[in-house]
């Protein structure tokens, strides 16, 4: 049995159950709640001293902060079925209310609801889903005083995997840059791979820092690397997704000819010892990222 026929069968079963048992409002129609509602909505009409604003009808039978759906509530039952079929997200699309008369203070309303229609699956901008329509009727005693047709779209969120759009470079994780590291990123913007060189003893160091661990000098300078080296180790990253990257991708730890190691994405088949060279990719005006590619002359 397909999902479609299974869902339709369940929908028919719930619809056949008809109206749920009447659920009585927590409180009778009352002036304090009317005043609160008018204040929230911003309605300054002075006429609501004996009767309630019709559009307030749903308020009387709301479940409260800790309310739970009644076991025979058709919308709850249908939601559960669609959840289980993978249509896990919901958005309300229509709410049409009809008022037969004003409700008077002191009247105690109850509400029933039934499942009117379930159609699908439909392809929507949000993803494939089912439109579920319920009809609610408010009663005072046996007299119907208001009705509402309420429609929701219960959908399966569109899978980003399906289309695999080119990841936006702008989404990539950006480095933090401070006065100790700015020279490196400035270099990348100028298509230069810079390695910190101690102004005192000449020690090459990456990642850089403000004080030379060899001689204690605080005069860091830099040299511009040839950007050539070999892969010292590497990872092929599969899971989880990484912002701005399309999996699987390779990250290589490269030992540069100058002797320091540096991480970067590698565009190519990885192996330890593979000769590589640096490539610069501009992300935006502030950020250019260095990465590696196999050397043509290898």
């Amino acid at each position, binding site marked *: 049995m397909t999902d479609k026929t299974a869902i339709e069968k369940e929908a028919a079963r719930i619809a056949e159950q008809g109206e749920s048992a009447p659920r009585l409002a927590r409180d009778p129609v009352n002036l304090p709640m009317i005043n609160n509602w008018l204040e929230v909505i911003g309605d300054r009409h002075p006429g609501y001293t004996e009767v309630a604003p019709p559009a307030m009808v749903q308020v009387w039978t709301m479940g409260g902060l800790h309310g739970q759906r009644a076991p025979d509530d058709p919308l709850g039952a249908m939601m559960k079925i669609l959840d289980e079929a993978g249509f896990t997200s919901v958005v309300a699309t229509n709410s049409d209310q009809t008022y037969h008369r004003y409700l008077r203070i002191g009247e105690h309303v109850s509400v029933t609801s039934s499942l009117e229609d379930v159609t699908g699956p439909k392809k929507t901008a949000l993803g494939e889903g089912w439109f579920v329509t319920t009809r609610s009727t408010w009663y005072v005693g046996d007299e119907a005083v208001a009705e509402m047709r309420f429609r929701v779209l219960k959908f399966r969120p569109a899978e980003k995997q399906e289309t695999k759009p080119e990841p936006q470079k702008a989404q990539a994780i950006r480095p933090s840059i401070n006065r100790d590291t700015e020279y490196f990123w400035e270099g990348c913007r100028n298509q230069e791979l810079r390695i910190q060189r101690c102004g005192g003893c000449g020690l090459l160091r990456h990642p850089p820092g403000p004080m030379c661990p060899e001689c204690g000098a605080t005069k860091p300078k830099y040299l511009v690397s040839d950007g050539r080296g070999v892969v010292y180790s590497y990872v092929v990253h*599969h899971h989880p997704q990484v912002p701005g990257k399309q999996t699987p991708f390779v990250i290589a730890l490269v030992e540069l000819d100058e002797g320091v190691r540096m991480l970067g994405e590698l565009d190519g088949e990885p192996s330890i010892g593979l000769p590589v060279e640096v490539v610069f990719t501009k992300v935006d005006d502030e950020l250019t990222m260095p990465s590696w590619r196999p050397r043509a002359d290898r």
Partner: protein
Amino acid sequence: MNAAIVGIGATDFSKNSGRSELQLAAEAVSAALRDAGLTPSDVDGLVSFTMDTNAEIAVARELGIPELTFFSRVHYGGGAACATVQQAAMAVETGAAKVVVCYRAFNERSGHRFGQVQTAAAANIDNSWSYPMGLGTPAAMVAMFARRYMHEYGATSEDFGRIAVIDRKHAATNPHAWFHNRPITLDDHQASRWIAEPLRLLDCCQETDGGVALVVTSADRARDLPQKPAHVKAATQGSGPDQFTMTSYYRDDLTRLPEMGVVARGLWERSGIGPSDVDVAVLYDHFTPFVLVQLEELGFCGRGEAKDFVASGALELDGDLPLNPHGGQLGEAYLHGMNGIAEGVRQVRGTAVNQVADVEHVLVTAGTGVPTSGLVLGAS
């Protein structure tokens, strides 16, 4: 050291605790105090470690601990697990506190997931040399070491897999383990998907919701308490040359964990025992390759020989060095090493579900690839 672990406590280990991290912490501490035969008013010290959202004062409030004279939080996440006991033991020895509780609690699976890319972590300058390049998960960071280790010593994915198989075998008979009754074979390991090559899914520990707490007091006081004390024979931290958190890629040798070497030296010196005196090893196993490197750093085998040591069956419950009898973090739960310390205490007490016979000394290590720590617990 004149200190002992006299109480252990834990919540259930799950994937969705359904309660706040503070509640988990409070429940674990409460259970540990009950186990120790102590009450919140006996406690005057609390220790946790970074990446725990539960402030010491918040835990004190929930438990009704009236006053604290010592509170401390150790850095570098899982690497600090055993260091909490070191802090507590030092506090007890110096008189800074009389009863110190160490705790860890989080919703690491249902809440903030540790295995995902922590974009915010890139704000750290050190991380700016790795995260923006796409190296942003603990698994990937360890995989970089593992690839080089394989290259240098000829270790294979199967060699890593044997650690997972042992842990899951031990977890299978531990009712508290998430993977209770669910052992795996080496074939299962080899069939599991790549996470960050050369690491497969079954090389990586779980993400867990839960809490663990340990009660530390002086050895003198321990004598008057109901449980058999697990004496802190040695506790030390370790950081190595040119140390980074998870990405110490700029040292000469990528096949070692020098910070664990520092811990090993400290433990053997201070406890007066050596590798051959260890009856049970609880080694931090967030990722299998680092269990092999730890065996080498701690002196159980030579460099590059861990794969043969593991294949020899030494780590089985009836082997020379029973490993993680509770199932480790691959099998029981990933409480950043704290559940491993609790297992060490049970092995010393003789109350573990997979009890090793006649345990005199248990070695426990903390997180690897980061500045780390270790413990030797003793029965006397």
